[in-house]
Protein backbone atom coordinates (compact mmCIF):
# COMPACT_ATOMS: atom_id res chain seq x y z
CA UNK A 1 0.00 0.00 0.00
CA UNK A 2 3.01 2.29 0.28
CA UNK A 3 4.27 3.05 -3.22
CA UNK A 4 7.74 4.46 -3.00
CA UNK A 5 7.99 5.90 -6.50
CA UNK A 6 6.55 9.21 -7.68
CA UNK A 7 4.13 9.39 -10.59
CA UNK A 8 3.41 12.03 -13.19
CA UNK A 9 -0.03 13.64 -13.51
CA UNK A 10 -1.35 13.18 -17.05
CA UNK A 11 -4.86 14.61 -16.60
CA UNK A 12 -7.19 16.05 -13.96
CA UNK A 13 -10.98 15.72 -13.70
CA UNK A 14 -13.82 16.93 -11.44
CA UNK A 15 -14.88 20.08 -9.59
CA UNK A 16 -15.83 18.88 -6.10
CA UNK A 17 -12.67 19.60 -4.07
CA UNK A 18 -13.25 16.40 -2.09
CA UNK A 19 -13.55 14.12 -5.09
CA UNK A 20 -11.29 15.66 -7.76
CA UNK A 21 -9.13 13.04 -9.36
CA UNK A 22 -6.03 12.80 -11.48
CA UNK A 23 -4.75 10.12 -13.80
CA UNK A 24 -1.19 9.49 -12.71
CA UNK A 25 1.44 7.56 -14.66
CA UNK A 26 3.87 5.39 -12.70
CA UNK A 27 6.44 4.53 -15.33
CA UNK A 28 3.62 4.01 -17.82
CA UNK A 29 1.14 2.32 -15.47
CA UNK A 30 -1.84 4.66 -15.11
CA UNK A 31 -3.76 4.92 -11.84
CA UNK A 32 -6.64 7.16 -10.93
CA UNK A 33 -5.94 8.96 -7.67
CA UNK A 34 -7.73 11.47 -5.47
CA UNK A 35 -6.45 15.06 -5.52
CA UNK A 36 -8.46 16.02 -2.41
CA UNK A 37 -5.25 16.63 -0.47
CA UNK A 38 -3.32 18.36 -3.25
CA UNK A 39 -5.87 20.85 -4.56
CA UNK A 40 -3.34 22.92 -6.52
CA UNK A 41 -1.52 20.06 -8.26
CA UNK A 42 -1.18 20.51 -12.02
CA UNK A 43 -0.76 18.32 -15.07
CA UNK A 44 2.89 17.25 -15.67
CA UNK A 45 3.80 17.57 -12.00
CA UNK A 46 5.17 14.54 -10.15
CA UNK A 47 3.32 13.42 -7.03
CA UNK A 48 3.69 10.84 -4.29
CA UNK A 49 0.61 8.64 -3.91
CA UNK A 50 -0.54 6.39 -1.08
CA UNK A 51 -3.61 4.14 -1.16
CA UNK A 52 -5.18 6.14 -3.95
CA UNK A 53 -4.44 9.64 -2.62
CA UNK A 54 -1.84 12.09 -3.89
CA UNK A 55 -0.16 13.35 -0.73
CA UNK A 56 2.80 15.42 -1.86
CA UNK A 57 4.23 16.98 -5.00
CA UNK A 58 7.87 16.57 -5.92
CA UNK A 59 9.65 19.93 -5.77
CA UNK A 60 12.06 20.33 -8.67
CA UNK A 61 14.42 22.77 -7.00
CA UNK A 62 14.67 20.66 -3.86
CA UNK A 63 15.19 17.58 -5.99
CA UNK A 64 18.54 18.98 -7.12
CA UNK A 65 19.69 19.59 -3.53
CA UNK A 66 20.53 15.90 -3.22
CA UNK A 67 23.12 16.18 -5.97
CA UNK A 68 24.51 19.39 -4.50
CA UNK A 69 24.95 17.72 -1.11
CA UNK A 70 26.56 14.70 -2.69
CA UNK A 71 28.87 16.87 -4.80
CA UNK A 72 29.97 18.66 -1.63
CA UNK A 73 30.76 15.52 0.37
CA UNK A 74 31.97 13.39 -2.53
CA UNK A 75 33.26 15.48 -5.44
CA UNK A 76 33.71 13.62 -8.68
CA UNK A 77 37.45 14.27 -9.16
CA UNK A 78 38.04 13.60 -5.49
CA UNK A 79 37.19 9.97 -5.95
CA UNK A 80 39.86 8.07 -4.10
CA UNK A 81 41.63 4.93 -5.25
CA UNK A 82 39.67 2.85 -2.73
CA UNK A 83 37.85 -0.20 -3.92
CA UNK A 84 34.28 -0.53 -2.76
CA UNK A 85 34.28 -3.18 -0.08
Amino acid at each position, binding site marked *: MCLAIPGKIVSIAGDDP*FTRTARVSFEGVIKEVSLAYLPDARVDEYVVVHAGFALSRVDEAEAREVFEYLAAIAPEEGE*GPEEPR
Partner: protein
Amino acid sequence: MKYLDEYRDPAAARRTLAAIRALVTRPWTVMEVCGGQTHAILKYGLDQLLPSEVTLLHGPGCPVCVTPAAKIDRAIALASRPEVILCSFGDMLRVPGSTTDLLSAKAAGADVRVVYSPLDALELARREPGREVVFFAVGFETTAPGNAMAAYLARRDGVSNFSLLVSHVLVPPALEAILSADGARVQGFLAAGHVCAVTGAAEYAPVARRHRVPIVITGFEPLDLLMGLHMCLAQLEQGRAEVENQYARVVRDQGNPAALQLLHQVFEVVDREWRGIGVIPASGLGLRRPYDEYDAERRFGLETLASPGEPAACQSGLVLQGRLKPSECAAFGRECTPEHPLGATMVSSEGACAAYFLHRPPPPNARDARGSGGQAPSREP
Protein backbone atom coordinates in the same frame (compact mmCIF):
# COMPACT_ATOMS: atom_id res chain seq x y z
CA MET B 1 13.74 14.49 -14.36
CA LYS B 2 11.76 11.39 -13.52
CA TYR B 3 12.98 11.38 -9.95
CA LEU B 4 14.08 7.76 -10.18
CA ASP B 5 17.17 6.84 -12.21
CA GLU B 6 19.02 9.98 -11.16
CA TYR B 7 18.90 8.66 -7.61
CA ARG B 8 20.18 5.22 -8.57
CA ASP B 9 23.47 6.25 -10.19
CA PRO B 10 26.09 3.65 -9.17
CA ALA B 11 29.08 6.00 -9.55
CA ALA B 12 27.51 8.59 -7.26
CA ALA B 13 26.64 5.81 -4.81
CA ARG B 14 30.28 4.66 -4.76
CA ARG B 15 31.50 8.20 -4.11
CA THR B 16 28.98 8.62 -1.30
CA LEU B 17 30.05 5.33 0.25
CA ALA B 18 33.65 6.56 0.15
CA ALA B 19 32.55 9.77 1.89
CA ILE B 20 30.80 7.68 4.55
CA ARG B 21 33.96 5.61 5.07
CA ALA B 22 35.99 8.80 5.44
CA LEU B 23 33.51 10.17 7.97
CA VAL B 24 33.12 7.25 10.33
CA THR B 25 35.58 6.83 13.22
CA ARG B 26 33.57 4.62 15.59
CA PRO B 27 30.85 1.95 15.51
CA TRP B 28 27.33 3.29 15.06
CA THR B 29 23.93 1.64 14.88
CA VAL B 30 21.24 3.29 12.78
CA MET B 31 17.68 2.10 12.14
CA GLU B 32 15.78 2.74 8.94
CA VAL B 33 12.15 2.98 9.99
CA CYS B 34 10.24 2.08 6.84
CA GLY B 35 9.88 -1.36 5.26
CA GLY B 36 10.22 0.22 1.82
CA GLN B 37 13.63 1.53 2.85
CA THR B 38 14.60 -1.91 4.16
CA HIS B 39 13.74 -3.45 0.81
CA ALA B 40 15.78 -0.86 -1.09
CA ILE B 41 18.77 -1.32 1.22
CA LEU B 42 18.76 -5.08 0.71
CA LYS B 43 17.96 -4.92 -2.99
CA TYR B 44 20.93 -2.66 -3.71
CA GLY B 45 23.09 -4.37 -1.08
CA LEU B 46 23.82 -1.05 0.62
CA ASP B 47 24.23 -2.69 4.03
CA GLN B 48 27.05 -4.85 2.64
CA LEU B 49 28.84 -1.88 1.07
CA LEU B 50 28.92 0.21 4.24
CA PRO B 51 32.01 0.31 6.42
CA SER B 52 31.97 -2.41 9.06
CA GLU B 53 31.52 0.22 11.79
CA VAL B 54 28.01 0.99 10.57
CA THR B 55 25.20 -1.40 11.52
CA LEU B 56 21.76 -0.98 10.02
CA LEU B 57 18.75 -2.23 11.96
CA HIS B 58 15.41 -2.63 10.27
CA GLY B 59 12.46 -0.88 11.82
CA PRO B 60 8.74 -1.40 12.39
CA GLY B 61 7.50 0.54 9.36
CA CYS B 62 5.53 -2.22 7.68
CA PRO B 63 1.80 -1.59 8.14
CA VAL B 64 0.80 -5.15 7.40
CA CYS B 65 3.38 -6.54 9.82
CA VAL B 66 2.26 -4.56 12.86
CA THR B 67 -1.46 -5.32 12.56
CA PRO B 68 -2.17 -7.71 15.45
CA ALA B 69 -3.55 -11.20 14.94
CA ALA B 70 -6.59 -10.23 17.02
CA LYS B 71 -7.52 -7.58 14.41
CA ILE B 72 -7.18 -10.14 11.64
CA ASP B 73 -9.43 -12.47 13.62
CA ARG B 74 -12.01 -9.68 13.73
CA ALA B 75 -11.69 -9.08 10.01
CA ILE B 76 -12.30 -12.80 9.45
CA ALA B 77 -15.28 -12.76 11.84
CA LEU B 78 -16.73 -9.84 9.90
CA ALA B 79 -16.05 -11.36 6.50
CA SER B 80 -17.80 -14.55 7.58
CA ARG B 81 -21.11 -12.73 8.15
CA PRO B 82 -23.39 -13.20 5.15
CA GLU B 83 -24.33 -9.53 4.84
CA VAL B 84 -20.73 -8.26 4.95
CA ILE B 85 -18.33 -7.53 2.10
CA LEU B 86 -14.88 -7.09 3.61
CA CYS B 87 -12.55 -4.88 1.55
CA SER B 88 -8.83 -4.87 2.17
CA PHE B 89 -5.50 -4.01 0.66
CA GLY B 90 -4.21 -7.18 -1.00
CA ASP B 91 -1.23 -7.49 1.32
CA MET B 92 -3.45 -8.27 4.30
CA LEU B 93 -5.05 -11.41 2.88
CA ARG B 94 -2.26 -13.87 3.67
CA VAL B 95 -1.32 -12.47 7.06
CA PRO B 96 -1.97 -15.14 9.66
CA GLY B 97 -4.54 -14.41 12.35
CA SER B 98 -4.61 -16.65 15.43
CA THR B 99 -5.86 -19.64 13.49
CA THR B 100 -6.38 -18.75 9.83
CA ASP B 101 -6.11 -15.89 7.32
CA LEU B 102 -8.48 -13.86 5.15
CA LEU B 103 -7.52 -15.73 2.01
CA SER B 104 -8.61 -19.04 3.56
CA ALA B 105 -11.81 -17.38 4.78
CA LYS B 106 -12.41 -16.21 1.21
CA ALA B 107 -11.81 -19.71 -0.13
CA ALA B 108 -14.36 -20.96 2.40
CA GLY B 109 -16.97 -18.58 0.99
CA ALA B 110 -16.48 -15.28 2.80
CA ASP B 111 -16.92 -12.20 0.59
CA VAL B 112 -13.43 -10.67 0.76
CA ARG B 113 -12.40 -8.19 -1.93
CA VAL B 114 -9.09 -6.56 -2.64
CA VAL B 115 -9.20 -2.81 -3.22
CA TYR B 116 -6.55 -0.28 -4.05
CA SER B 117 -8.09 2.67 -2.22
CA PRO B 118 -10.66 3.09 0.59
CA LEU B 119 -12.68 5.11 -1.91
CA ASP B 120 -13.15 1.91 -3.96
CA ALA B 121 -14.74 0.33 -0.89
CA LEU B 122 -16.97 3.36 -0.38
CA GLU B 123 -18.00 3.18 -4.03
CA LEU B 124 -18.87 -0.49 -3.59
CA ALA B 125 -21.08 0.42 -0.61
CA ARG B 126 -22.94 2.92 -2.79
CA ARG B 127 -23.49 0.26 -5.45
CA GLU B 128 -24.55 -2.47 -3.03
CA PRO B 129 -26.99 -0.79 -0.63
CA GLY B 130 -28.28 -4.16 0.54
CA ARG B 131 -24.87 -5.26 1.87
CA GLU B 132 -22.61 -3.99 4.65
CA VAL B 133 -19.24 -2.96 3.25
CA VAL B 134 -16.37 -2.94 5.76
CA PHE B 135 -12.96 -1.54 4.87
CA PHE B 136 -9.95 -2.91 6.76
CA ALA B 137 -8.22 0.39 7.61
CA VAL B 138 -4.61 -0.40 8.44
CA GLY B 139 -1.40 1.54 8.06
CA PHE B 140 0.62 4.46 9.26
CA GLU B 141 0.16 8.19 8.70
CA THR B 142 0.41 7.59 4.93
CA THR B 143 -2.89 5.69 4.66
CA ALA B 144 -4.78 7.51 7.44
CA PRO B 145 -5.70 10.59 5.34
CA GLY B 146 -7.35 8.39 2.70
CA ASN B 147 -9.27 6.43 5.31
CA ALA B 148 -10.30 9.68 6.99
CA MET B 149 -11.64 10.85 3.65
CA ALA B 150 -13.67 7.66 3.20
CA ALA B 151 -15.30 8.14 6.63
CA TYR B 152 -15.86 11.83 5.94
CA LEU B 153 -17.52 11.19 2.57
CA ALA B 154 -19.62 8.32 3.96
CA ARG B 155 -21.03 10.68 6.59
CA ARG B 156 -21.40 13.62 4.22
CA ASP B 157 -23.25 11.54 1.66
CA GLY B 158 -25.20 9.39 4.12
CA VAL B 159 -23.67 6.06 3.04
CA SER B 160 -24.85 4.16 6.11
CA ASN B 161 -23.84 0.63 4.98
CA PHE B 162 -20.12 1.49 5.07
CA SER B 163 -17.77 1.11 8.03
CA LEU B 164 -14.08 0.83 8.91
CA LEU B 165 -12.23 -1.84 10.86
CA VAL B 166 -9.50 0.43 12.17
CA SER B 167 -5.96 -0.61 13.10
CA HIS B 168 -4.07 2.61 12.46
CA VAL B 169 -0.63 3.14 13.95
CA LEU B 170 1.69 6.13 14.36
CA VAL B 171 5.45 6.23 13.86
CA PRO B 172 6.79 8.57 16.60
CA PRO B 173 5.39 6.53 19.54
CA ALA B 174 6.97 3.40 18.02
CA LEU B 175 10.37 5.13 17.92
CA GLU B 176 9.84 6.11 21.57
CA ALA B 177 9.04 2.49 22.45
CA ILE B 178 12.11 1.17 20.61
CA LEU B 179 14.37 3.70 22.33
CA SER B 180 12.87 3.05 25.75
CA ALA B 181 13.16 -0.77 25.57
CA ASP B 182 15.82 -2.53 27.65
CA GLY B 183 19.05 -2.91 25.76
CA ALA B 184 18.04 -0.43 23.08
CA ARG B 185 20.84 -0.22 20.53
CA VAL B 186 19.55 2.37 18.08
CA GLN B 187 21.65 5.53 18.01
CA GLY B 188 20.06 7.27 15.06
CA PHE B 189 17.05 6.95 12.79
CA LEU B 190 16.37 7.31 9.10
CA ALA B 191 12.71 8.34 9.40
CA ALA B 192 10.18 7.30 6.75
CA GLY B 193 9.96 10.04 4.16
CA HIS B 194 6.39 9.45 3.07
CA VAL B 195 5.03 9.41 6.59
CA CYS B 196 6.64 12.82 7.10
CA ALA B 197 5.15 14.06 3.82
CA VAL B 198 1.84 13.88 5.70
CA THR B 199 2.88 14.82 9.23
CA GLY B 200 5.83 17.14 8.66
CA ALA B 201 8.86 17.10 10.90
CA ALA B 202 7.54 18.64 14.10
CA GLU B 203 6.59 15.43 15.94
CA TYR B 204 10.14 14.10 15.72
CA ALA B 205 11.92 16.93 17.50
CA PRO B 206 10.83 15.87 21.02
CA VAL B 207 11.99 12.28 20.35
CA ALA B 208 15.38 13.45 19.09
CA ARG B 209 15.82 15.77 22.05
CA ARG B 210 14.62 13.40 24.78
CA HIS B 211 16.72 10.43 23.64
CA ARG B 212 19.59 12.40 22.06
CA VAL B 213 19.25 10.60 18.75
CA PRO B 214 19.62 12.21 15.35
CA ILE B 215 16.58 11.65 13.12
CA VAL B 216 16.99 12.19 9.38
CA ILE B 217 13.84 12.15 7.27
CA THR B 218 14.94 10.05 4.30
CA GLY B 219 13.70 8.94 0.90
CA PHE B 220 13.68 5.53 -0.74
CA GLU B 221 16.22 5.51 -3.56
CA PRO B 222 19.82 4.36 -3.03
CA LEU B 223 21.28 7.88 -3.13
CA ASP B 224 18.58 9.12 -0.76
CA LEU B 225 19.41 6.37 1.70
CA LEU B 226 23.16 6.94 1.46
CA MET B 227 22.78 10.69 1.83
CA GLY B 228 20.41 10.21 4.79
CA LEU B 229 22.96 7.90 6.37
CA HIS B 230 25.76 10.36 5.76
CA MET B 231 23.73 13.11 7.42
CA CYS B 232 22.86 10.88 10.36
CA LEU B 233 26.44 9.63 10.83
CA ALA B 234 27.80 13.19 10.58
CA GLN B 235 25.50 14.17 13.44
CA LEU B 236 26.59 11.17 15.49
CA GLU B 237 30.27 11.88 14.89
CA GLN B 238 29.74 15.53 15.85
CA GLY B 239 27.62 14.75 18.90
CA ARG B 240 24.50 16.40 17.49
CA ALA B 241 20.96 15.04 17.79
CA GLU B 242 18.69 17.00 15.50
CA VAL B 243 15.89 16.40 13.05
CA GLU B 244 17.10 16.91 9.49
CA ASN B 245 15.30 16.48 6.19
CA GLN B 246 17.10 14.63 3.42
CA TYR B 247 13.87 14.20 1.44
CA ALA B 248 12.99 17.87 0.99
CA ARG B 249 11.81 17.30 -2.56
CA VAL B 250 8.77 15.53 -1.09
CA VAL B 251 8.60 16.46 2.62
CA ARG B 252 7.67 19.99 3.70
CA ASP B 253 8.26 21.10 7.28
CA GLN B 254 4.54 21.47 7.90
CA GLY B 255 3.59 18.22 6.15
CA ASN B 256 0.35 18.21 4.17
CA PRO B 257 -1.99 20.61 6.03
CA ALA B 258 -5.16 19.54 4.17
CA ALA B 259 -4.52 15.87 4.95
CA LEU B 260 -3.66 16.59 8.60
CA GLN B 261 -6.76 18.70 9.04
CA LEU B 262 -9.16 15.95 7.94
CA LEU B 263 -7.12 13.26 9.67
CA HIS B 264 -7.58 15.05 13.01
CA GLN B 265 -11.22 15.82 12.28
CA VAL B 266 -12.02 12.14 11.80
CA PHE B 267 -9.47 10.35 14.01
CA GLU B 268 -8.19 10.75 17.56
CA VAL B 269 -5.06 9.32 19.15
CA VAL B 270 -5.69 6.06 21.03
CA ASP B 271 -3.66 3.27 22.63
CA ARG B 272 -2.94 0.63 20.05
CA GLU B 273 -1.74 -2.98 20.07
CA TRP B 274 1.20 -3.70 17.73
CA ARG B 275 1.77 -7.20 16.48
CA GLY B 276 4.51 -8.96 18.42
CA ILE B 277 5.21 -5.84 20.46
CA GLY B 278 2.07 -5.30 22.53
CA VAL B 279 0.10 -2.21 23.43
CA ILE B 280 1.96 1.07 22.99
CA PRO B 281 0.22 4.01 24.68
CA ALA B 282 -1.12 6.76 22.40
CA SER B 283 0.36 5.01 19.36
CA GLY B 284 -2.63 4.69 17.06
CA LEU B 285 -5.67 6.35 15.60
CA GLY B 286 -9.32 5.55 16.27
CA LEU B 287 -12.47 7.15 14.89
CA ARG B 288 -13.63 10.08 17.00
CA ARG B 289 -17.22 11.23 17.41
CA PRO B 290 -19.35 11.56 15.35
CA TYR B 291 -17.39 9.36 12.93
CA ASP B 292 -17.32 6.47 15.41
CA GLU B 293 -20.69 5.38 14.06
CA TYR B 294 -18.60 4.12 11.11
CA ASP B 295 -16.50 1.96 13.44
CA ALA B 296 -17.09 -1.65 12.38
CA GLU B 297 -16.07 -3.09 15.75
CA ARG B 298 -18.76 -0.98 17.39
CA ARG B 299 -21.38 -1.54 14.72
CA PHE B 300 -21.01 -5.32 14.82
CA GLY B 301 -20.31 -5.66 18.56
CA LEU B 302 -16.79 -7.06 18.14
CA GLU B 303 -15.09 -5.09 20.90
CA THR B 304 -15.11 -8.05 23.23
CA LEU B 305 -14.31 -10.81 20.73
CA ALA B 306 -11.55 -12.85 22.38
CA SER B 307 -8.53 -14.01 20.39
CA PRO B 308 -6.16 -16.84 21.24
CA GLY B 309 -3.23 -14.63 20.24
CA GLU B 310 -0.33 -14.97 17.88
CA PRO B 311 1.37 -18.13 16.65
CA ALA B 312 4.21 -18.80 19.07
CA ALA B 313 6.98 -19.79 16.67
CA CYS B 314 7.31 -16.40 15.03
CA GLN B 315 9.67 -13.81 16.43
CA SER B 316 8.48 -10.95 14.26
CA GLY B 317 8.03 -8.73 17.31
CA LEU B 318 11.79 -8.77 17.83
CA VAL B 319 12.40 -8.30 14.10
CA LEU B 320 10.11 -5.26 14.05
CA GLN B 321 12.04 -3.66 16.88
CA GLY B 322 15.42 -4.26 15.26
CA ARG B 323 16.39 -6.73 17.99
CA LEU B 324 16.65 -9.76 15.69
CA LYS B 325 17.72 -9.95 12.06
CA PRO B 326 15.39 -12.13 10.00
CA SER B 327 18.32 -14.40 9.12
CA GLU B 328 18.88 -14.97 12.85
CA CYS B 329 15.40 -16.44 13.28
CA ALA B 330 15.68 -20.24 13.46
CA ALA B 331 12.60 -20.65 11.26
CA PHE B 332 13.84 -18.28 8.53
CA GLY B 333 13.90 -20.04 5.15
CA ARG B 334 13.14 -23.35 6.81
CA GLU B 335 9.70 -23.64 8.39
CA CYS B 336 9.03 -20.05 7.32
CA THR B 337 9.08 -19.00 3.67
CA PRO B 338 6.91 -16.66 1.61
CA GLU B 339 4.89 -19.70 0.45
CA HIS B 340 4.45 -20.93 4.03
CA PRO B 341 4.83 -17.81 6.15
CA LEU B 342 4.73 -18.13 9.93
CA GLY B 343 4.59 -14.41 10.47
CA ALA B 344 3.40 -11.20 8.89
CA THR B 345 6.97 -9.97 8.28
CA MET B 346 7.40 -12.88 5.84
CA VAL B 347 4.05 -12.27 4.10
CA SER B 348 4.15 -8.59 3.44
CA SER B 349 5.90 -7.11 0.45
CA GLU B 350 7.21 -4.52 2.91
CA GLY B 351 8.23 -6.99 5.61
CA ALA B 352 11.86 -7.41 6.68
CA CYS B 353 11.77 -11.23 6.61
CA ALA B 354 10.40 -11.17 3.05
CA ALA B 355 13.12 -8.68 2.07
CA TYR B 356 15.82 -11.01 3.41
CA PHE B 357 14.25 -14.02 1.72
CA LEU B 358 14.08 -12.19 -1.60
CA HIS B 359 17.50 -10.53 -1.57
CA ARG B 360 19.54 -12.71 0.85
CA PRO B 361 18.07 -16.14 0.30
CA PRO B 362 19.18 -18.82 2.73
CA PRO B 363 21.42 -21.54 1.25
CA PRO B 364 19.36 -24.13 -0.66
CA ASN B 365 20.29 -26.99 1.64
CA ALA B 366 18.68 -25.04 4.48
CA ARG B 367 15.51 -24.81 2.47
CA ASP B 368 15.58 -28.52 1.70
CA ALA B 369 15.51 -29.20 5.43
CA ARG B 370 11.87 -28.08 5.32
CA GLY B 371 9.58 -31.00 4.91
CA SER B 372 12.33 -33.58 5.49
CA GLY B 373 10.74 -33.70 8.92
CA GLY B 374 11.96 -33.37 12.45
CA GLN B 375 15.46 -32.24 11.58
CA ALA B 376 16.77 -29.68 14.02
CA PRO B 377 17.62 -26.63 11.91
CA SER B 378 21.22 -25.60 12.33
CA ARG B 379 21.83 -21.91 12.86
CA GLU B 380 23.20 -19.80 10.09
CA PRO B 381 26.85 -18.85 10.36
